[in-house]
């Protein structure tokens, strides 16, 4: 595949590293100095503007299968996609960081159509959305939603004394509509069976309808009582922090605090948010954190645009007694370090965006819904082909390390058990370990 990447920054570089082995890449950037970074990779580098038709033609845009615009400027990215489309690029992907070009009633689709963009990627918004999902699921350390919110996937860490560790899975009698699809023990992911016994320290992945999953949650925590409203503290009111604050501000059952260092940014936040308390100060200022009793927060979200300060703020939060800490990581290399020192969730906006593009390019037709545990496991949606012979789940010789988490049939959602049938035209939400995705696709003939 011939791919043009406009923008040689962090994202452009990550993409090039992931894609240069299997595809022929041309990187376009106005700043000739970033060229040396790309010398180590097998890519063509072109100095010039991605909004110049001339430069794009030199990059043979007409023959390109894909153009990815990922400079730091939304305007440049959008114009670049529009020009590339006009010059004959097959598909375009555009990175954006703001949403004000949408207008109040504007839809993403109309903007996409207007600028000839196939896909808009919005790393900060996606990160904010992801954090919101985690915050909205009390007790969960990670959360995803699928099928327009009809299916949820929550990740929990089991603690000593959890009722789920008292008996093998088959004897736990989980509510119909909820399924433990995977267990992560130490660093390996396995699909549990009826005789699997959970133990403290395991991370479990529960998939199901929102109601059923909601019933499971109290059984994970045992007698522990969860407060009705959560006190959420966000440190850093930047792009991600602001977007997250806007979403949580509108949510019920959340009392929100935002700590922002910059006075004028703080004023903007206070002007926009209706209920949240905006504090002007440094998230690493222990005196402020203590005076405002940040230690009593149920969730601390640290989304400063600086890994070191994020880590520091999160560790302070932990010292003050915050239970759940969600931290943004900018450099993918820091991710593992963060989790090792006790941060529950470390998330990377760019990492997730790059991962989803790489998967889109290399993953074929089955639709990727989510990457979990740094790519160790994936959730894919598979459309069952019309020729498929209906059969019960337990009769199927499905590939190991995979499990059908949900069946979408018309408007119904079925969380399957052994006897449930899979029929043609069903759409399946499948949880699979990374090395099983291929076999799963092969099995259903959708590769």
């Amino acid at each position: 595949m011939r791919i043009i990447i406009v923008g040689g920054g962090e994202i452009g570089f990550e993409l090039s590293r992931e894609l240069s082995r299997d595809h022929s890449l041309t990187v376009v950037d106005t700043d000739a100095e970033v060229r040396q970074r790309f010398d180590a990779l097998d890519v063509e580098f072109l100095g010039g503007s991605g909004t110049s038709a001339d430069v794009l033609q030199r990059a043979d845009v007409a023959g390109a299968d894909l153009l990815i615009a990922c400079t730091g400027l939304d305007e440049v990215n959008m114009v670049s996609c529009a020009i590339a489309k006009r010059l004959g690029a097959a598909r375009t992907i555009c990175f954006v960081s703001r949403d004000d070009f949408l207008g109040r009633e504007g839809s993403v689709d109309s903007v996409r159509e207007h600028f000839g963009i196939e896909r808009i990627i919005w790393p900060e918004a996606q990160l904010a959305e992801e954090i919101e999902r985690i915050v909205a699921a009390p007790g969960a350390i990670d959360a995803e939603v699928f099928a327009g919110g009809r299916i949820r996937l929550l990740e929990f860490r089991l603690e000593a004394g959890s009722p789920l560790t008292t008996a093998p899975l088959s004897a736990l009698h989980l509510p119909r509509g909820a399924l433990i699809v995977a267990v992560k023990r130490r660093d390996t992911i396995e699909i549990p069976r009826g005789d699997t016994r959970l133990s403290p320290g395991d991370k479990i992945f529960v998939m199901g309808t929102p109601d059923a999953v909601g019933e499971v949650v109290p059984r994970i925590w045992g007698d522990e009582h969860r407060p009705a409203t959560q006190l959420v503290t966000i440190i850093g009111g930047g792009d991600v922090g602001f977007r997250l604050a806007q979403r949580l501000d509108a949510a019920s059952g959340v009392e929100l605090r935002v700590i922002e260092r910059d006075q004028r940014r703080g004023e903007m936040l206070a002007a926009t948010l209706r209920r949240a308390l905006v504090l002007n100060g440094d998230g690493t200022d222990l005196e402020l954190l203590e005076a405002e009793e940040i230690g009593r927060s149920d969730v601390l979200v640290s989304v400063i645009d600086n890994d070191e300060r994020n880590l520091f703020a999160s560790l302070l939060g932990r010292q003050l007694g915050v239970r759940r800490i969600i931290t943004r990581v900018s450099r993918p290399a820091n991710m593992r370090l963060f989790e090792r020192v006790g941060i529950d969730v470390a998330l990377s906006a760019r990492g997730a965006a790059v991962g989803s593009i790489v998967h889109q390019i290399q993953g074929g037709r089955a639709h990727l819904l989510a990457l979990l545990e740094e790519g160790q496991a994936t959730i894919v949606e598979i459309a069952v082909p019309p020729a498929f012979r209906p059969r019960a789940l337990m009769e199927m010789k499905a590939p190991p390390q995979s499990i059908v988490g949900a069946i979408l049939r018309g408007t119904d959602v079925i969380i399957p058990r052994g006897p449930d049938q899979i029929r043609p035209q069903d759409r399946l939400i499948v949880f699979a370990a990374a090395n099983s995705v291929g076999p799963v696709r092969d099995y259903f003939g959708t590769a």
Partner: protein
Amino acid sequence: MRLPVVIHTIGAFLRFFSIAFVVPMLVAEYYGERRDALVFLGTGIGSAVVGYLMTRTRRSRTEDLKRVEGLAIVATSWILLSWSAAVPYLFAGMGPIDAMFESMSGLTTTGATVMRDFGDYGRGLFLWRSLTQWFGGMGVIALFVAVLPRLGIGGRQLFFAEAPGPTDEKLTPHIRQTAKLLWSVYAGLTAAQFVALTAAGMPVFDSACHSLTTLAAGGFSPHPLSIAGYDQPLVQWIIIFFMFAAGANFALHYRTLRGELRAFPKDEEFRAYLGIIALSTLLLVIFLRPEVPGLLDRLRHGLFQTLTILTTTGYASTDFQLWNDQARMVLFALMFIGGCAGSAAGGPKIVRQVLIARYTLIELRRTLHPRGVLPVKLGGRVVPDEVMRGVLVFFLFYLLVFAVCTMIVSALGLDLITAITASIACLGNIGPGLNAVGPMANFADLHPVSKIVLTAAMWIGRLEVLTVLALLRPEVWRLATFTQPRE
């Protein structure tokens, strides 16, 4: 400040204002009051001549009107117009102080009267009284801005000097156009009320007078017993509706008429307006149980008196001076609130009270979170610090003027409740107060100095205090000049 510019502009206003005397002249003639008709004719001609002489002063372009000139023009023209409007009262037998009081009470839509016996005066004069309120309700300057084309850009300053609310709702970018729209909504509602009252059986002359003074939130009535003199619940309900409309923001009326149905419900001030009305009516319905037996009657009087005081109209559907102390306390509290900004109502205005309440609550919260960023918001927008400061300063000055006025009036021989309510009733342009200045009483027996002080209070209150008080600064007059700098 260039005095020729000021004098010229005021002269132009006066000249235009003289046309208004035609209306009472015709009415007086129609009812056979020939002498009164001649008085109106003479006053009109006299005003026109004086106005013409004033416009003879050398005039520079008014486009570059300075701020202080705008304030001076607005403040002084209100005085001069009230003098012009007072002439017919003089000829009807009032003393000069009484005539000025009655005239200022009309133009500022206060509605306080010094008339003892209504039988002494002709119909032309009653119509004139109502008409002055109608001009004053939407603002005479706003009217001039709407119809006098030569004001140009300076009109903007004049418009906001007359109605310096904390929010400047602009319907169109052109102030002339905005003033026109507001005046046409105002005139339209007045006409609607006239039709409704006539249809409900009120005599045509009375309907006209009441329509003019209801929409203006004025309160003059040709009937000595005010609205209580028409013992028809339907009439009172109609007036309740139009008082309610007069107390709401006219820009929102216009937008609603244009089909923007959510304009009213979305407005925070309007919601507060509804809330205050509901609470006050409820309290009156409870407190009035001994006085008014029927629930529906209690509701009608409660609602009527709430609106008449809150919108600063000042009618009476019954003699509320006879009510018990709890009920009168409710009315007294309403006197300090006023109607919505951009309405015909006077008083401190609801939006200011909302802002002050929010500011206070936020300061309480700041003691708990010293590092909190806690802006005052209105309608989802942050209120800038200087606007908030303006509101606080306004209210401070308002209370100061109220206190000084009360002390003077009280020192000149009134009991405390009369002094307090007379002061706030004039400063807030409401009209009747309690005790000796209650709804069925009048201001005629007050000490002449009290009358002058209260006349000044009406003027200061109508122009929202700061426009007038700013002119008391010595530098304003030190820099006043008759010669014009060369351009």
